[in-house]
């Protein structure tokens, strides 16, 4: 199994979720992250103090899928998450040794 981690823009999350559901993804775990990268931050000013905020709000999606689903899922995410502007984000793919559904104890592809 593979874990696909995608760092994406906030307002793309719904779209990605729907696209993924259509290609058969059954579960997603999302979290709020702040990302630093090529995308320029913004300046904030509070009375005298001015500083740059480099870490911009992004969403990280984690999706575990069976090995054969992986390419499909990755391309679906790319299609749905792309705007073409700097800051669209990244996808990382990692190998997963084992996956277990807590409710039933099912393991492996069963648990996806």
């Amino acid at each position, binding site marked *: 199994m593979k874990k696909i981690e995608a760092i994406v823009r906030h*307002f793309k999350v*719904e779209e990605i979720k729907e696209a993924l559901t259509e290609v058969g993804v059954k579960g997603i775990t999302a979290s709020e992250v702040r990302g630093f990268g090529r995308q320029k931050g*913004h300046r904030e000013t509070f009375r005298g103090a001015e500083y740059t905020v480099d870490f911009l709000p992004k969403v990280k999606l984690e999706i575990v899928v069976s090995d054969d689903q992986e390419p499909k899922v990755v391309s679906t995410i790319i299609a749905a998450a792309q705007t073409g502007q700097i800051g669209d984000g990244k996808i990382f793919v990692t190998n997963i040794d084992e996956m277990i559904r807590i409710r039933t104890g099912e393991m492996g592809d069963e648990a996806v």
Partner: protein
Amino acid sequence: MTAQKKGPWSARLTIITILALMIGCSRSVPANDVTPAPTTQPFVAADIAFVLIATAMVLAMAIPGLALFYGGLVRRKNILSIMMQCVSLTGLMSVIWLLYGYSLVFAPDLPYSFGFVGGFDFVAMSGVLPTNGESGQTIPAVGTIPRMSHFMFQMMFFVITPTLICGAFAERLRFASVCWFSVLWGTFVYCPVAHWIWSDTGWFSEFNTTNPWCKAFDFAGGTVVHVTSGVSALVCAIIIGNRLGFRQEPMPPHNLTYTALGAMLLWLGWFGFNAGSALAANPLAVAAFTATHMAAASGLLGWSLMEWLSHGRVTLLGACSGAVAGLVVITPACGTCSPLSALLMGLMGGAVCYLACTRLKNAFQYDDSLDAFGIHGVGGLLGAILTGVFATRMMKGGTEPLGLVDGNPEQILYQVIAALVTALYAAFISVILLKIIDSSLGLRVSQQAELQGLDIAEHGEEGYIFH
């Protein structure tokens, strides 16, 4: 609709102009030769105390009341922009009111304006300020309070009215455009309408003893405040267009606790708004106070009832919206209707505004983001009409029958005429102002700014930094 910023210079010019005007005016007013001579000073200390406190309470409706009510309803990324609009408009409109707003409303008719608007007698507080002559200090009065107190009380209405409109175009307008629109709207919509309805010579004014075209009751500003702002809000929502992603992605309120807190403060402040409109601490103020509270209570129940019937559950946002709807509906009527009628009016207000904010908006798909029209426009119109139904001398004293229940059915007609003329006028001027601003400054922020949120894009600040 152009989206790009026209550069900060336009904005800087704005401020400089206002500044220049301000200094100019404050120079040009010879503070010691005011003409409209008030001589006797029949002040009642209790009325002064009451109206001063009421003034503070009305201000509390705008800041922090409305700032929180609206602020909670937007998405997190726009919370500061809406609070900024509320607080900045408070500053801006107060200065405009001092410069000429009060005069356009309450001064004797502008010559040749046929009662359309007030003249310049009270410009920059001339005729409002005390004077020190040989015979000692002379303080202009309105009723039993200094005219300056009347000036302040009415100022707060001028402050809050354009602020209400901000609910319609929240989360997408340039800050500079909001300021310009509000100042122009205050000048060209609020001032004339308030003159029609509240001045001694207004067309629809019950205080016009000589020749009112059609005498309408509007005790605390149902038409002046809520119909004007509500209808203009609808026009704004339509002309400015929907938020990006409207009806595609959820745009839930980011902090309902603020919205609830804001609604509670509105409820409290409204006592000042309505009871204070008696301009004296008398039984009429008590009656207005009571009607106000009962309508808020039953507005809350009316909206909740509709929710219960349609979804089987009630929401805090619904309860709060209903209370505000009840308050809007009772505003024109609170000085003339009994608390029992207020109960019914509030109930109807809650139910009708519920339908406006859910069914009507869904049917026509305009993005009245925070339901400024659904609550203030619809509630204001409903209130204007119901005032004609429920006005009764029981509360107001006197011997003439007032509304339908009192045996004077034609009052309803007057109410409808005044409200409709006002609504059409407000809509018409709003369209013109929006067009002008759009083709000069540009109304909307850029798409990128809208996605990023106005707090960072327009103001370079963030609301919450919780990490």
